[in-house]
């Protein structure tokens, strides 16, 4: 059951941390067709001036999906995965995260509103990303949830 706008707009989630695994970064780079060797080989990345294999810019978004975090956030709103479409996404990057970094993520609902006479619910989740030294960047995801199955986004 969909939760109230007041409930959803006040949602935030505890900070969690993850260590970026080189194997997962390489798998992700392969999946997006990125063949630049800095995304596949630690030596090449270091020779190019990175501390280790850099995370492709959209990789950190994937950490959100680990351990069912994304599904559980939707459940906290009363929304099912099959109801949503991803409509907007942004990230800002202050420093590049690389393999081996311990990265923390702190997510909250930053906006939430209804459209089309209440048939569509738009939710924006903002995630602050940090490493041990400070801010890495911010991600924002905007989802549209069909509350009425016939609604077109």
């Amino acid at each position: 059951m969909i939760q109230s706008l007041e409930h959803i707009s006040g949602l935030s989630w505890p900070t969690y941390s993850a260590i970026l695994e080189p194997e997962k970064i390489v798998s992700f780079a392969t999946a997006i067709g990125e063949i630049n060797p800095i995304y596949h080989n630690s030596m090449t990345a270091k020779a190019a001036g990175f501390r280790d294999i850099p995370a492709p810019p959209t990789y950190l978004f994937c950490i959100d999906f680990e351990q069912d975090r994304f599904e559980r956030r939707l459940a906290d709103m009363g929304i099912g995965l099959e109801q949503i479409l991803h409509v907007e996404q942004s990230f800002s990057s202050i420093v590049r995260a690389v393999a081996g970094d311990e990265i923390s993520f702190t997510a909250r609902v930053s906006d939430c509103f209804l459209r089309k006479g209440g048939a569509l619910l738009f939710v924006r989740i903002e995630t602050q990303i940090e490493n041990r030294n400070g801010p890495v960047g911010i991600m924002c995801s905007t989802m549209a949830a069909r509350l009425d199955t016939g609604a077109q986004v």
Partner: protein
Amino acid sequence: MSATGRTPPIGDTPPRLVFGPVTRAELLTYSQASGDRNPLHLDTEVAKRAGFSDVIAQGMLAMAFATRALEHWFGIDAIRLLQVRFVDSIALDSVLEASATVSSSSFEEASFEVEITIKDQKNVSKLVGDASLTVAR
């Protein structure tokens, strides 16, 4: 790589880049590597129930193509900000083309902004975005 050490001029348009065609196998590989298990991208029946003729590509796969294009054009580690809108669903077998135009450029701050668009082979926009970049090291 281009633009090392200097900002590109306003109106500059880097050469278009083509991605795809988008295959079912690619959507599965992206799902596994990203952890996005939304069945809309994997299960034809779920996609049909949602009103599509078959599975559609993950929006984040298109955004990843946009970052690949920006890094190819302007250098690894150049992107400071990227905001995109997923304006239309991406069907199977789509051939995607990324294009961009430099919309502002500051020599003093070694930074510039780019409008990026990803269209399919029918010239329908699928992703539109704005990026802020810094001159590659």
